[in-house]
């Protein structure tokens, strides 16, 4: 890929180098590098600064690979006790039925149906290696009638196996890391991803990959092999798979704000399930895309599998860590889910960002105040001390009480996302006020307290009547997919 530049290029590059050096950012040596850089295609507001270190402090020496089995979603019963977990699960099941029969707003049968249906990922499952390599029982019959001629029929005719370049008898895709990054960004947007960043799996980032996978407890190991493989007790990532593609899928603010009091509803939670289902579909498409190009794409077998998604998102500059102990991006706030695929396709890393979000969280405690489980930190300063084994030490954060959060999921019957709904960054962006506030808090923390109070005064983040959602006429998935693109 070449871009032709014009006269004055040398002077321009000199100027650019100086400006970039001042900002402590990447130095480009050529205009082609500037244009081919993944951040060139990533249209972000002017007040989002690319920085060398994320706004969350990290002590890499004290960070170990986290055992995914310790996360509260997996080990909840262990943390609160089997009896409590059983009682809460029974309560959830009883309430689900009771609220449907009572026609309780936000928990009616149609709300529950929407929650369950949205979380369906269709016929796509999740596979570390790719769905077509998951079973040895798959028959491998050539299908000349295939419309593209690049598939091999497998057992399920609706899940044909793609052909790799090797099988097809052609050379695999070759591109520079910059070209590859641009290509992946473009194709991921097409598949439905919102933001896409990249990381090199260096000694630090490798610590963000679980030591043991979250749901099935398989060991995640790095080995000097060409191809990734999986056994009954481990998943092996080849040393050559040195890059991670991190991407986000937006959630609908109109849905997430359909909570009742401080409790989420089936309706508000349905956007969470939908985003996870979309993430699985997009990851599956990405795996296939990489396989057809001749590369490996390794994904989590569960939405929280393989690696710590928010941490990767922070390091790749999708957003900043926050009081939610989740990622908040300048464009979509906390209304997104983060996904990751490890690959051997060489890519250029994107950098962390500073948009004043973590600083804002020090003043604003709206999420912690609204948390019905009181699971979020009310401390002004982030801490190095973890709350429990469900947290991973080694970074200075607002660690949450995971089991308390998980308990509430059962009480509410639908999980919880109240903290996301009340966050000042969960907003649309039509009023000039938002365009004034975000650059200001990015540049100075002086007005953060005032902005928090005004957020309350203006009624942003307030719960909306659940049933009114059914009368709205919203865009697909209830999101603004144009935000942060060339078409904005």
């Amino acid at each position, binding site marked *: 890929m070449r871009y032709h530049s014009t006269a004055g290029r040398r002077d321009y590059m000199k100027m650019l180098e100086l400006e970039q050096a001042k900002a402590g950012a990447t130095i480009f040596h050529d205009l082609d590098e500037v244009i081919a850089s993944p951040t060139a295609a990533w249209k972000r507001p002017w007040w989002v600064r690319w920085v060398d270190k994320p706004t969350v402090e990290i002590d890499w020496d004290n960070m170990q690979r986290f055992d995914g089995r310790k996360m509260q979603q997996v080990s909840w019963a262990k943390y609160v006790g089997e009896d409590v977990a059983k009682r809460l699960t029974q309560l959830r099941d009883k309430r689900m039925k009771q609220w449907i029969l009572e026609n309780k707003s936000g928990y009616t049968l149609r709300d529950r149906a929407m929650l369950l249906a949205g979380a369906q990922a269709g016929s796509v499952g999740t596979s570390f290696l790719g769905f077509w390599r998951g079973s040895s029982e798959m028959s491998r019959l050539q299908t000349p009638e295939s419309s593209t001629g690049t598939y091999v029929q497998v057992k399920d005719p609706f899940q044909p196996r793609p052909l790799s370049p090797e099988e097809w008898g052609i050379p695999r895709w070759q591109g520079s890391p910059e070209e590859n990054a641009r290509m992946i960004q473009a194709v991921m947007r097409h598949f439905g991803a919102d933001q896409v960043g990249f990381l090199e799996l260096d000694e630090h980032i490798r610590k963000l990959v679980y030591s043991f996978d979250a749901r099935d407890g398989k060991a995640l190991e790095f080995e000097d092999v060409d191809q990734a493989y999986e056994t009954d007790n481990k998943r092996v990532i080849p040393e050559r798979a040195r890059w991670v593609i991190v991407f986000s899928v937006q959630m609908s603010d109109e849905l997430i704000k359909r909570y009742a009091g401080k409790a989420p509803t089936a309706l508000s939670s349905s956007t969470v399930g939908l985003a996870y289902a979309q993430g699985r579909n997009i990851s599956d498409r990405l795996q296939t895309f990489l396989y057809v190009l001749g590369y490996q794409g390794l994904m989590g077998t569960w939405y929280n599998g393989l690696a710590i998604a928010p941490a990767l998102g922070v390091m790749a500059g999708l957003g900043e860590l926050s009081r939610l102990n989740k990622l908040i991006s300048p464009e979509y706030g906390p209304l997104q889910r983060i996904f990751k695929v490890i690959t051997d396709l060489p890519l250029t890393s994107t950098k962390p960002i500073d948009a004043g979000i973590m600083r804002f969280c020090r003043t604003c405690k709206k999420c912690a105040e609204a948390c019905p489980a009181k699971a979020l930190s009310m401390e002004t300063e982030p801490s190095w001390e973890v709350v429990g084994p469900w947290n991973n030490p080694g970074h200075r954060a607002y660690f949450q009480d995971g089991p308390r959060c998980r308990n509430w999921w059962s009480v509410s019957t639908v999980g919880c996302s109240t903290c996301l709904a009340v966050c000042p960054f969960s907003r649309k962006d*039509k*009023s000039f006020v938002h365009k004034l506030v975000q650059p200001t808090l990015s540049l100075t923390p002086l007005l953060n307290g005032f902005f928090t109070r005004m957020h309350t005064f*203006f*009624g942003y983040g307030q719960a909306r009547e659940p049933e009114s959602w059914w009368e709205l006429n919203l865009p697909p998935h209830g999101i603004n997919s144009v935000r942060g693109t060339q078409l904005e």
Partner: protein
Amino acid sequence: MWWFLYGLVTGAGGMRLIMWVIQENVTVGWYVWLLGALALLLGTLTAQHYFASLQELEPKAARRGLLVMGVPALILAGVASWLFLTS
């Protein structure tokens, strides 16, 4: 489109006012122009926030915006008009 029409009407109105002041040789203090410009700016921002908030499905934010920005805009416009008419 609406903002384009708003710009045309406001621009034409402003031009007409300035021409009238020159033609009639009316003396208007600089602070009157400043107050008028501030009232117009605040009023414009209020209108933008109001209609944008309704689009955002945030009716409370729209109403509160009228209160926080619209009332000061009206007061400023009233003071500027009074000073203009008595100059």
